[in-house]
């Protein structure tokens, strides 16, 4: 993806993610909605899901303590493995 595209998607995607945060009610609950428009984080975490349209993020959840991953929940087997109840039961 050329750099100009990344810049544009960065901007538009953060607006979209913010819109999702607002419309879903998640932002009101205090959840931060951050756009990984260039997929830099997704790539660094090794969670690239290549689709014909774009790079998506494989569904995941994790807990990090001071920047270090202490619990990781993959969706490789079941999506529900990444949902909050699974996370809470591991804490």
């Amino acid at each position, binding site marked *: 993806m050329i750099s100009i595209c990344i810049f544009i998607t*960065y*901007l538009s*995607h*953060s*607006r*979209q*993610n*913010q*819109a*999702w945060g607002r*419309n*879903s*009610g*998640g932002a009101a*609950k*205090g*959840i*931060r*909605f*951050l*756009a*990984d*428009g260039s*997929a*830099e*984080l*997704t*790539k*660094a*975490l*090794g*969670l690239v*899901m290549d689709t014909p*349209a774009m*790079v*998506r*993020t*494989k*569904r*995941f*959840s*994790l*807990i*990090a303590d*001071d*920047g*270090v*991953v*202490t619990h*990781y929940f*993959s969706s490789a087997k079941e*999506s*529900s493995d*990444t*949902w*909050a*109840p699974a*996370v*809470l039961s591991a*804490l």
Partner: protein
Amino acid sequence: MLHLSLLFLVALTAIASISSVSAFLPRQTVAASTLFTLSASSSTAAETTDMPEVQVGDKIPSVDLMELKEAGGKPETVNLSDLIAGKRVAIFGVPGAFTPGCSKSHLPSFMEAQADLKGNGVDMTICVATNDAYVMEVSDNQCSNL
């Protein structure tokens, strides 16, 4: 970036060592070793785009993400490492905002769990997505019944 630079250096070293050896070999062998060098460097390039999946003990990379806090405002750059330094956080990633699995299960589960997460010392919950055209096509109302 450090990983990329290191792999690049390793590839360069490999090329350099093979080239120096090939100086003492007959011409046909040189051609073969050149091919080997090319394939070795291309496989190195492929590995750099395929990072291993995150695991317990890994450090969350220092990457800049974008956040829009208020409708109509300007998106702001948020460095993930800075944001989560000294905190216990939950981070979840989804294939796309507004996609069914994300809007109907993953995100709502974390919305409902906020009090329990805070009770377990989780200071902040962060949702990340690369996002796509889904969000452009979905009307506001479709996600209001969560």
